[in-house]
């Protein structure tokens, strides 16, 4: 699940919840779905909990690109 995209995970999760609420799948599937749903929830939450922010600037041209950090002016306080 490492490279999974958030929106795919979210979609899968919605699907699983809907199926679970319909309540007409075999027990084995229900158990498996529930497990997978919990995993997806963890993944999505973790993704949303990431707070590391990066603001950089790209300088130079195609042949010699440089990435430099960008000084944010925290003007408005948030």
């Amino acid at each position: 699940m490492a490279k999974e995209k958030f929106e795919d995970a979210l979609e899968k999760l919605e699907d699983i919840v809907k199926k679970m609420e319909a309540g007409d799948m075999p027990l084995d599937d229900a158990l498996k779905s529930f497990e997978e749903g919990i995993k997806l929830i963890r993944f999505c939450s973790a993704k949303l909990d990431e707070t590391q922010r990066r603001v950089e600037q790209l300088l130079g041209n195609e042949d010699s690109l440089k990435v430099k950090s960008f000084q944010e002016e925290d003007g408005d306080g948030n």
Partner: protein
Amino acid sequence: MKEILTVSQLNENIKYILEETFGFVWVEGEVSNLHRPQSGHIYFTIKDDKSQIRAVYFRKYGFPKNRVADFELEEGSSVLCRARLSVYPPRGDYQLIIESVEPRGVGALQKAFEQLKAKLAAEGLFDNQYKKELPFIPGRIGVITSPTGAVIRDILNVTKRRYPAADILIAPVKVQGSDAAAEIIQALANLHAHGSVDVIIIARGGGSLEDLAPFNEESLARKIFSSTIPVISAIGHETDFTICDFVADLRAPTPSAAAELVVPQRLELLAKIINLKKRAIAGFGRYMTDRRKGLLGLQERFKDPRRQVTDLQIHLDDLQQRMQRDMRHQRQYLAGKLQKLELSLKHSSPEKRIQETRILLNNLQKDTQANFRSYWAVRHERLRKNAAVLNSLSPLAVLQRGYSITRKLSSGEIVRSAGMLATNEEVNIQLAKGKFQARVEKIYGE
């Protein structure tokens, strides 16, 4: 009588008539004799090839706020004015008091813009089918804009607020002037070469048509069209449109709006995940409860057969009892009914009636005999009387006197004339006493 006016009166009258008659007017023409005294008001004349009129643009009206503010009145420029016609009595001049003025026929830029727009549209550069979809949560956001000023600050603030983990790579460029388009094209190339961003915002604050000119350049439009990364254009104010806006995959009305479009609301997403989690757990819980209930139900229905036999026995006993009870009731009922019938039967026994009838009959018999006797006695008496009368009327009594009755022997018909008879016919003749048979010997007339 001639009415004599003073000059002031005349001018006042003219002022009144002019101002009432014309009110507001739209006038177009060329600017000339432009001068700006210290007051800040602008005086000029508007003319066409045959005529001219004085105009003043008072500062108090505030020179128009938005784009027209950047429009500079120049000698010889062609303008369209909204103005009020007024008279200045001290000099006896009439002039236009300008309310607003806009360039007329500056159209070169505007025209070029329209032409390019039409050309690129015809080529299909704005077609929806080429619009790329934005990533739901971008891994890294490329921003092409000026590294200083409100635009980049707005974008950084909005992304930070909505989605703190946003990763932004800025490609700094000039956004105005003749180098701007080339720099933006280079920045696009750089971002593609770097390969780390999955969405690009091209942003600039508001400005005049001239300021926005770089974003109306064909080379930039084509570069954007060929981008493999989705591009959002956020140029100028909501009312400004550039060629970039049309060719980009998405047009944002302002740079802040672009930032909002490019990153989702973290809190909204979080709420959604939490809600889904609740639903998943509740759903699973309900699922298991339902299964458990189902099992319990089956268990209940799954009974020991011996218990069933006992149940049946009890049922049978019950039925038997009910049957016996029913029969007892039935018997009692019938017995009672029989008793009642017997009683009523006894009550209506015929014996008594037979006795009564017999007595009645006896009496009747006695009466009948008595009646019969008296009946006959009466009859007998009456008969006797009648016989005496009858006797006096009887033909026998006539016969007594010597007459006789002749009857045909064959038919017994009484012979009342000789014509009824034939010779040798036998007749029977009755006398008062006895009869005799005779034969007709001879017949005499009538």
